[in-house]
């Protein structure tokens, strides 16, 4: 086992990693920016080093400062956490070049999974369905019509080098294709200097479902159940649960088999997530996140494991304590993200407790919520025997949570949790937009 590990991150996830390291007997080195001098992770770590000013680009994203700190403090490994450099293959390469262990998959695997076209092809190769669409670029109406009809309307025209909604057009019938192809291509050219577009089936109000994976780098792959993250505001997840109310045992098996094949063949090492869009009983591969995720605690509750511990174990070359062929899922777990609506200083904090309740956060009475970083300040997670009980427990717990001095989204979350559509379990990623007016 390694003796000392540096966490190249801040906030709640840094605190989360330190907790597991303490239990494993690994000393921790925290890094912080000048805005985080009094942050909880700085106080909890064995060693803390200020690596730069508040601006992330000069601190938490500064590869040089991070590697220098890890080497100089005698660390053997770097845990990247979530966000920041956690899926940056170049950083992973630098970490390895400095003789340190990277708590994550190989940089080559990160690179491969980061390229959406390659990732889709690879997923398909291992038996995972991808959204139907054109095999290559589409430029004329004559090319587009047969593809669109084969997919079935509505379809979406997407920019090949796109992102962030630019160069995207939803088309409902043949007659609309020509004009929208032209608009999408012009938009794509203006935004990405590449007018190439392609066509895909457009899923209306799909569910966002993902599988939690822990793999040992030798082909051993444990599927730790799925998570449903359909409650999203502008693609930001708000509420996550495991299992998903929309996944049948047959779907779960098919998803798991494909994921096992994919991760096993990649000799994937560490924690990862494979995301799907689900429409009825159909599901389509979306992407792989080559890291631990914010919402991992719901999977920890239903599988009874510490995923950060397993992630560290496999990455440092120890044996994982999970038997990949016998992962038992029990009960239901739900997480509500607690987000700050504005920066400030916490003047009072009351943390919920009782059976099946967990609050992961970097807050304490007197803590500062900085305007420089992510707005998430905590995660309230509960477990109970089934969805109905878990929801009641989460509402009970969220009512116990009191944060003063910093405005947070507790009231909104409570409204979603009590909403009849949410409670029915029959909803998709459009739920938040649908409810927004009433929140």
């Amino acid at each position, binding site marked *: 086992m390694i003796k000392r590990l540096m966490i190249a991150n801040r906030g709640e996830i840094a605190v989360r990693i330190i907790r597991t390291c303490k239990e494993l007997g690994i000393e921790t080195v925290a890094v912080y920016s000048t805005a985080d*001098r009094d942050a909880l992770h700085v106080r909890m770590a064995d060693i803390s080093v200020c690596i730069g000013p508040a601006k992330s680009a000069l601190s938490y994203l500064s590869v040089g400062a991070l590697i220098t700190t890890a080497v100089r403090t005698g660390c053997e490994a770097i845990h990247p956490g979530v966000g920041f450099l956690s899926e940056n293959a170049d950083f992973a390469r630098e970490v390895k070049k400095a003789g340190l262990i990277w708590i994550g998959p190989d940089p080559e695997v990160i690179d491969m999974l980061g390229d959406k076209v390659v990732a889709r092809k690879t997923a398909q190769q291992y038996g995972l369905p991808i959204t139907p669409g054109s095999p290559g670029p589409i430029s004329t109406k004559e090319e587009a019509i047969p593809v669109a009809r084969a997919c079935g309307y509505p379809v979406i025209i997407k920019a090949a080098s796109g992102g962030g909604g630019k160069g995207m057009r939803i088309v409902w019938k043949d007659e609309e294709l020509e004009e929208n192809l032209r608009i999408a291509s012009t938009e794509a050219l203006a935004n990405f200097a590449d007018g190439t577009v392609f066509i895909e089936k457009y899923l209306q109000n799909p569910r966002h479902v993902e599988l939690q994976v822990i793999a040992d780098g030798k082909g051993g792959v444990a599927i730790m159940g799925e998570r449903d993250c359909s409650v999203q505001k502008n693609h930001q997840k708000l509420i996550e649960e495991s299992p998903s109310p929309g996944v049948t045992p047959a779907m779960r098996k098919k998803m798991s088999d494909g994921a096992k094949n994919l991760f096993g063949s990649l000799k994937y090492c560490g924690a990862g997530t494979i995301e799907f869009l689900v429409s009825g009983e159909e599901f389509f591969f979306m992407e792989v996140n080559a890291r631990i995720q914010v919402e991992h605690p719901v999977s920890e509750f239903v599988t009874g494991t510490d995923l950060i511990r397993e992630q560290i174990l496999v990455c440092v070359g120890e044996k994982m304590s999970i038997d990949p062929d016998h992962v038992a899922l029990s009960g239901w777990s739900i997480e509500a993200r607690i987000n700050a609506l504005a920066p400030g200083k916490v003047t009072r904090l009351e943390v919920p407790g009782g059976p099946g309740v967990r609050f992961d956060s970097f807050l304490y009475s007197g803590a500062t919520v900085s305007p420089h970083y992510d707005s998430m300040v905590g995660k309230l997670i509960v477990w109970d025997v089934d969805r109905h009980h878990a929801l009641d427990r989460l509402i009970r717990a969220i009512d116990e949570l009191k944060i003063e001095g910093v405005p947070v989204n507790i009231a909104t979350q409570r409204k979603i949790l009590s909403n009849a559509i949410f409670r029915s379990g029959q909803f998709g990623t459009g739920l938040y937009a649908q409810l927004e007016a009433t929140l």
Partner: protein
Amino acid sequence: MDEKTLLSLFDKFEKSSAVEMKYSESGASFELRRKEAFASASPVMAAQAPAPAQAPSVSVSAHEPPHTASPAPHAAAAASGNEYIKSPIVGTFYRAASPDAPPFSEVGKKVTKGQKICIIEAMKMMNALEAEFDCEIVKLLVNNGDMVEFDQPIFEVKPL
């Protein structure tokens, strides 16, 4: 741990500018905090008021000292009229360009704006730190070969 070691650690803490110290060894542990360590827990009345000079929480694990027990609080002002020159990056502090070269700075030495005062090595890059104004070196706050943090005071100087 014997009493003598314990008392000497207490003494060292007393004399340092650290506000908090944690120590743990198999079976024994203690934490020391000055009242300043709790200052941030009290409600802030005026958010605009300048924060009191406060040392970062320096966790000292006495049996493993590779890290910085910052000799001077980051935000504190130096003795009257004096100023701190702080490290612009994380790295290793060197007084000279090479082990056998003469040091760039000595206590009492007067340096002019733009003159090299030390080297901070990071990622095998030797970064020369230059004086931003004419000054006299009053005190070296770190030792040759020490690790320095971002914003850590490394020289106390008297502007000329």
